[in-house]
């Protein structure tokens, strides 16, 4: 079983693999692209780029704060600096460096966090990026992007390199269903409606988009028409699509593989409050550290499932 299966979607590569392949491809197009990693290139998948372009690659060792500031320095020499490690070590270990060496000077650093969420599984809480979106969103001027499948991840990787400025890109460890088999017209800040519906809107990103598709498939069997939006950009948030969904469907469920506070749910709630206030429900990790376990077992235990989304829809429909 995988998310998207009951909606007829095919299983594709992990988003970290799509990022790594795209990065290597884009190395030819962008001679000013440089990559900094911290002894985890074989996990983040910067490795293919590093092998293809050793002179433009820097493995600084297990030193995340150093990595981030080095990327800032490279960017201030006119490079497009990509730096990458596990999402939690990137955001939580090197936060002041992201703030002072990247965000404040508005430098062209793309920081990429892998191993997002609890679905990394057995390694457990110390390696799980569950607060990265909240932290990244709090950095002034930083764009925050969470693609949902391999196709949109490849497009997102190209998009962040094409645009100047500090950005955070979140990748995942496990395989994900392909939501865009025919390609993805990816624009930073512009969400994608994957399925239309009139009773409720499910807004999701990352691996939870495929789960949202499955929930919508289930709901349809019971006569509930659910719209599904892939909100791949958390900041700047697509307020227009949110207001439209609120107006047309009257209720919204926000789904993410992240903590309750400061993630997609908080950002969408702010937008809804500012535009067309409607009832909201949330599906996320809540306010806790998870534990070690198999990926699907963890998603089940911590309530990140199509069934949990269906329940949230029921709760918001009253």
């Amino acid at each position: 079983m995988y998310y998207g299966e009951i909606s007829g979607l095919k299983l594709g590569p992990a988003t970290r693999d799509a990022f790594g392949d795209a990065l290597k491809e884009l190395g030819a197009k962008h001679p000013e692209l440089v990559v900094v990693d911290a002894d985890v290139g074989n996990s983040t998948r910067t490795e293919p780029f590093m092998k293809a372009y050793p002179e433009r690659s820097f493995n600084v060792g297990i030193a995340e704060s150093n990595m981030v500031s080095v990327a800032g320095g490279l960017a201030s020499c006119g490079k497009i600096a990509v730096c990458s490690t596990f999402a939690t070590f990137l955001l939580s270990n090197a936060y002041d460096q992201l703030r002072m060496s990247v965000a404040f000077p508005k430098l062209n650093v793309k920081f990429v966090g892998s191993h997002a969420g609890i679905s990394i599984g057995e390694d457990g809480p110390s390696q799980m990026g569950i607060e990265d979106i909240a932290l990244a969103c709090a950095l002034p001027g930083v764009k925050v992007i969470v693609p949902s499948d391999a196709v949109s991840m490849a497009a997102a990787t190209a998009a962040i390199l094409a645009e100047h400025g500090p950005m955070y890109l979140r990748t995942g460890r496990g395989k994900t269903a392909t939501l865009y088999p025919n390609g993805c017209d990816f624009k930073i800040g512009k969400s994608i409606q994957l399925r239309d519906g009139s009773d409720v809107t499910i807004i999701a990103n990352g691996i939870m988009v495929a789960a949202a598709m499955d929930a919508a498939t289930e709901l349809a069997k019971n006569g509930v028409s659910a719209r599904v939006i892939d909100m791949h950009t958390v900041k700047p948030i697509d307020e227009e699509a949110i207001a439209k969904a609120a107006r047309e469907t009257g209720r919204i469920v926000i789904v993410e593989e992240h903590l309750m506070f400061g993630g997609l749910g908080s950002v969408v709630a702010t937008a809804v409050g500012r535009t067309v206030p409607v009832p909201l429900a949330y599906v996320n990790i809540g306010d806790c550290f998870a534990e070690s376990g198999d990926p699907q077992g963890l998603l089940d235990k911590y309530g990140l499932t199509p069934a949990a989304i269906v329940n949230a829809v029921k709760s918001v429909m009253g």
Partner: protein
Amino acid sequence: MAVSIEELQAKAKLLRKHIIRMTTAAASGHPTSSLSTVEMITALFFGGFMTYRPQEPHWPGRDRFILSKGHAVPALYAAMAEAGYFTVEATMSLRKLGSIFEGHPNMARMPGIEASTGSLGQGLSIGLGQALGCRLDKIDNHIFVMTGDGELGEGQVWEAAASAGKYKVSNLTVIVDQNGYQQTGATKDVLDLRPVADKFEAFGWHVQTVNGNCQATAVAALTIAKSIKDRPSCIVSQTQKGFGILPILEAEGDMNYHGKPLSPALAEKALALLG
């Protein structure tokens, strides 16, 4: 010392077998990172260097061991099982949903774990805090911290080294498990921090460089470290990643074998090799 080197060697062999069984059953984890640490951890837990009460894990007078390179926790679980904190059988639930034997040490869930680690670089600072706290409370004990050699890339390790030197915490010992590898390759290629001994010395530490996979040497080094009464102590423990099953790593063509469990077939071979 009550216990002989031969007895410790037998214990070390048991720990190695537990590590292999645990990680193969989990089908994930870091057996080679665990195996390099075994002689030092065996000496600490069973060589008379630490006093602890498995039935009363929070007893204030206890000596403490912090595994800063938390991914090697199968070695610690194996030692704690042999010490009587829980059964060896229980540790075979490593990394399973609901098990307290998580992939990295979690002191919130497991009594006897002295620090929650897994994000490299923090253990020595935590150990310094505990050394200062125990000194303040006039507890006559010792804090042992084990780091990796790749882990030394974290700047925080050197912040801790400098402040431990400043406060002359003689109840603190760091064991650097210098196994020559980190995740993406040999430490000499990724980030060569040698000479490690000179760096700790420069921060005011007593330093020994020893063969950390020799049981008698591990015991001798810890004896000296505990006897130093005017400054913190560092043992650069030169080891081999995967020590005990090196022929298997050779045959597999990967002397690092980082973060990979042995397949059931390889585990069989490894257990036979250990004897």
